[in-house]
């Protein structure tokens, strides 16, 4: 596939693969997916995405804008998106908080948009250079009102590249903002990375072959036709509840129908949106459900557990929202315990509990001291659970 690693190839002239930083990989993935508009505001630990865009976009006749704040950044992206541009911005927790109102607008106005949030410890300024997964619920529920959300989580450099691409594709297809969550570790780590390596990371849920249609995707027309300012097609855009004409309505029936449709276009496409990977499927009495940098620990824990004879399986989630209900419940039906290591106080564990508690025991393994959860800790926790069960 020629299109999707053009930018990467420019860097790999002399090498088969090279060390690429996660943030850089995200920017390259965006460029290769067709992003041609970026407006942003500097913030640690995401600024490198913006810096790569500042350098690369003018070389492909794209638009790069450094705005006065994160609110202006996302609003400029929405403006560009409404004219048909493929737009993206990147930020971290505090900036992501500032973007929340506009995210709701993009959902309401059905403006395709990608927001990469490289999470850092919070709340407030927190510890800016320390990893965290504290924004999971902000990504889901940060903006006001009942709304759908598509949230992806990257666990390594290759993920940053391909999940940013997937986010562009999902945003265009479902015409709404898509959030890519990374954390400081994933954003700042450098890993050996090449287009071939990206291809090797196959997912159980399947399709990561980026065909051309992913770059210029057909649009879903389940709700309303897309806005394209500069044509006479559907020319009025508003954040007010509106009907199929695009103009505001106060009609209770139409209001409910419209909001329901916004939800349904996401929830009814869970099969397509929920990306995941199962390791050692059916091989364990304990399942680890993990995402982001914690999924790396979980994958490493699998090897340790294998060596020590502890029955473990790992469900690595790349899509956090919409909730992968069927996938989680399938795992829940066959294990006795689910443990969820995450760098927060159990934000996603609560979601897993809601999905799985009818079948199994869900245990949150949250950590908020700024350090990673190690593979050893995960294995020890699993061993204790299994041992406890046997002695009971």
């Amino acid at each position, binding site marked *: 596939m020629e299109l999707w690693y053009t930018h990467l190839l420019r860097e790999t002239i002399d090498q088969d693969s090279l060390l690429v930083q996660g943030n850089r990989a995200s920017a390259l993935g965006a460029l290769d997916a067709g992003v041609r508009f970026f407006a942003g505001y500097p913030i640690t630990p995401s600024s490198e995405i913006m810096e790569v865009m500042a350098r690369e976009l*003018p*070389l492909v006749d794209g638009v790069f804008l450094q705005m006065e704040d994160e609110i202006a950044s996302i609003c400029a992206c929405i403006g560009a998106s409404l004219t048909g541009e493929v737009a993206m911005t990147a930020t971290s927790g505090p900036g992501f908080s500032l973007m929340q109102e506009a995210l709701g*607008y993009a959902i309401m106005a059905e403006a395709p948009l990608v927001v990469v949030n490289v999470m850092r410890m919070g709340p407030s300024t927190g510890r800016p250079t320390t990893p965290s997964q504290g924004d999971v619920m902000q990504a889901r529920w940060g903006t006001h009102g009942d709304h759908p959300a598509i949230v992806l989580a990257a666990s390594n450099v290759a993920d940053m590249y391909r999940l940013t691409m997937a986010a562009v594709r999902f945003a265009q297809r479902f015409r709404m903002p898509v959030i890519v969550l990374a954390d400081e570790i994933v954003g700042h780590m450098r890993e050996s990375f090449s287009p071939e390596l990206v291809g090797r990371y196959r997912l159980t849920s399947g399709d990561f072959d980026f065909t051309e249609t992913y770059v210029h995707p057909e649009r879903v027309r389940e709700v309303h036709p897309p806005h394209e300012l*500069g044509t006479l097609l559907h020319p009025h855009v508003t954040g007010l509840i509106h009907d199929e004409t695009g103009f505001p309505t106060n009609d209770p029936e139409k209001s409910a129908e419209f909001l329901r449709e916004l939800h349904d276009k996401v929830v009814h496409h869970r099969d397509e949106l929920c990306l995941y990977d199962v390791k050692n499927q059916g091989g364990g009495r304990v399942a680890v459900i993990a995402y982001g940098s914690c999924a790396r620990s979980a994958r490493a824990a699998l090897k340790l557990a294998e060596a020590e004879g502890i029955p473990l399986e790992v469900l690595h989630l790349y899509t956090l929202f919409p909730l992968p209900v069927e996938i989680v419940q399938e795992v829940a039906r066959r294990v006795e315990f689910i443990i969820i290591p995450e760098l927060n106080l159990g934000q996603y564990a609560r979601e897993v509990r809601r999905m799985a508690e009818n079948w199994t025991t869900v245990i949150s393994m949250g950590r908020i001291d700024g350090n990673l959860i190690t593979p050893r800790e995960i294995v020890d926790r699993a061993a204790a659970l299994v041992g406890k069960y046997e002695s009971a």
Partner: protein
Amino acid sequence: MTDVTEPLGPDEQHPPVERGSGAGAATATEPDLGPPDDDRGIEQYLHTDRFPHIWCPGCGLGTVTAAFLRAALSLGLRKDRTVVVGGIGCSSRAVGYLDFGTVHSIHGRALAFATGIKMAHPEFTVIVLTGDGDGAAIGGNHLIHAARRNIDITTILFNNMIYGMTGGQASPQTGPDHQATTAPFGVAEPAFDLCRLVEAAGATYVARGTSYGVRQLERLIRGAIEHKGFSFIEAVTQCPTEFGKRNPPKSPVAMLEEFKASAVSVKAARDMAPEELKGRLITGLLHKDEEVPELTAGYEAMLARLRAERERDGEGGS
């Protein structure tokens, strides 16, 4: 006469980006103008099926909107090449009645949306309709930065000195000695001189008009749209419902009479002492600078330079 209602042909539905081509207002064919006070002509720019509008009887927002539409008509602005962005508030609701590409955005952020639209499509004529609360309070930061960038956007700020839609709260433009629901004992803070603010920030076309002097306002708006750069028009207008009832004169007519009495032209103001100008509205074109580079043109020049460098390097390598 330019038929602004004619939709694009199928081949033109998805026009490519023509950066810096300056299409839109500049390339529209010469319009055949009716008399400027004949309002029938502007109906083609209005979604009259959306009427009645939400504005109160005696409100000046419609007067200012009509002045904008007459200016648009005189320039033959094409519906498919003109994007009008509003924020939130009474004035921003105008976009819902206009038959251009229209964006009813979020509170205070109209200029940020417009910046994205203009950068993505420099060939569009981009207009922002905002109010004193939307543009000067919550959106004040975007206002000064849009001015600093000198991006080719025309901003019409409807200044009625009050938050009308939310029921009469004080705005930054309410000013001392006035009352509002959130300033029942009077406002202790001074108001912005918005025109001086945006001029200092870098705007290259700055003007002030009132809903009394509609002909002047129309001329100023026309000049602003024609100007290549960030244009700002403060349109002082009456809100009899929320401002007038707490701050006499109460009636719309009395408020207009007051605008008439306090307005002084830029030319006349030059010969007046500062104390004479206290409390007066200086109207007309306050500032114009055609030397400052415009953002989208500057950005396009940078892209062209990079393209030329790439071609040169490519040739050198082969």
